[in-house]
């Protein structure tokens, strides 16, 4: 699971190794990546919202 999270973080950042890509595509299943991606997107939303609320004060 931690591999998937790392890969999704790499995707959000936009940089990834070729070797990790091959492993992800060979072992990982698409559905897992998509759901983890959506959850981490929501996490990102909450995080940025918190930063915005704090910054607005």
């Amino acid at each position, binding site marked *: 699971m931690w591999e998937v999270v790392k*890969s*999704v973080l*790499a*995707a*959000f*950042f*936009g*940089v*990834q*190794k*070729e070797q*990790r*890509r*091959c492993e992800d*595509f*060979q072992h990982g299943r*698409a559905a897992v*990546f998509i759901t983890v*991606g*959506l959850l981490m*997107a929501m996490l*990102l*939303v909450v995080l*940025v*919202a918190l*930063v*915005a*609320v704090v*910054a*607005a004060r």
Partner: protein
Amino acid sequence: MATNPAPKPVPQHASTAAGGLAEAHPERPSGLLRWLLTTNHKEIGTLYLIFSLTMFFIGGVFAMVVRAELFQPGLQLVQPEFFNQMTTMHGLIMVFGAVMPAFVGLANWMVPLQIGAPDMALPRLNNFSFWLLPVAFTLLLSTLLMPGGGPNFGWTFYAPLSTTYAPPSTTFFILSLHIAGISSILGAINIIATILNLRAPGMRMMDMPLFVWTWLITAFLLIAVMPVLAGVVTMMLMDINFGTSFFNAAGGGDPVLFQHLFWFFGHPEVYIMILPAFGIVSAIIPTFARKRLFGYASMVYATAAIAILSFLVWAHHMFVVGLPLVAELFFMYCTMLIAVPTGVKVFNWITTLFRGSISFEPPMLFALAFVVLFTIGGFSGLMLAIAPADFQYHDTYFVVAHFHYVLVPGAVFAIMAGVYYWLPKWTGHYPHERLAQWHFWLSVVGVNLTFFPMHFSGLAGMPRRIPDYALQFADFNLVSSLGAFLFGASQLLFVAVVVLCVRGGRQAPAQAWEHAEDLEWSVPSPAPLHTFETPPTFERPAH
């Protein structure tokens, strides 16, 4: 329709698809019926591209009317109501009629060839989703002739201007958007089904070329976003005709709700228009730099991330509508966060060029112009992300300059690069080198002459969508209008090159470009109507 050149000796079973000699199968209809009933992905691809080129010229004519009026201060040519119809129709025709169908046409042609599939997964649905488009756009164009005129509320059709204060033809505008939306949705389903299920044995998801990968992500975006557009347009229909008040403050609705819904569709839509362009450029630059794409994995992961992140930033189009402070900060930060991973892909292309062995055939010229000019559009995008500064930029010509830089030298140049790159495969002939170079240089000069002054007229205070302006903006608009006429005229060269290429020109071998390595270069040029009847064995290149 496509011209049929004189019969030429043609290998027995092969028949050129793109308007070349259609070798008569016993039961195949010929002439118009062939094109009406075709379920072949190559013929439907050609139909999409011809339709897109036609729409590109119709939208271009509307842009010429707009630029002709803005040539000088004062109202010389058209009345303001008609001017608003021209700007609105220009936007609608270019976005939904020229750019999206062009990418769908390229996908129809190249995706099956690049993954070794015999055809699209659902051929009859493919035909149906194409022939929806002429219906939708004939309906849309006919609204110009209706009493009260066509849509005059901008391609973003904000309520209440598009609901309570709209001309009576708005209901037809809504119907045409529905039909065009359905066509895009069916196209997207078809492409996802093809990519996921019809790859050649041995080609795993990770071996797919970048054009196919970016189109897969675009198709997912289309599936997620077109229903939201359909929803918004249905709510508009109910507000206009059935007395609901989704967007009418009088009845408890909220015009700002419309903007939220529209841009929730709108921002992923602009990614839909640029991701396939990333895919095309990522295929062309390595071929002519004779060097493998730098950071292939990063490109794949970044485009995948866009599929989700593009949904978080919609309200940066609404910084001045009266959002609370926290919302403005949230959307500013999110826009900054996702602008970087996508913008940075430009560095990948440039590093691919670094220490390559570069030649400058027409596709490469357009791809390089894409990289340079799209980056300028990206920079003005970064400037627009700064919310306080956006209070001065919003709804001025600075924004017009931004999105035209990412759309005209962005999406349109990438489409043209793709056409020049794959014409040898479609027609069996290389495009006319000299004419293509003329088309390239005139287009680049025209694009910059048209849209670069708009940065300054916008900064100096010229609002968008106005038929007449104050005297201090006169020089900028003069230059922009001249540039627009030059750019418009130079596109006729593109038609000439394509027609000449279909009819003749230097013969192209199967491997038309020396360093091209995708699967489509293994089929003969011109690509026969039926390719990969028996799936090819795909041997993995040394990754």
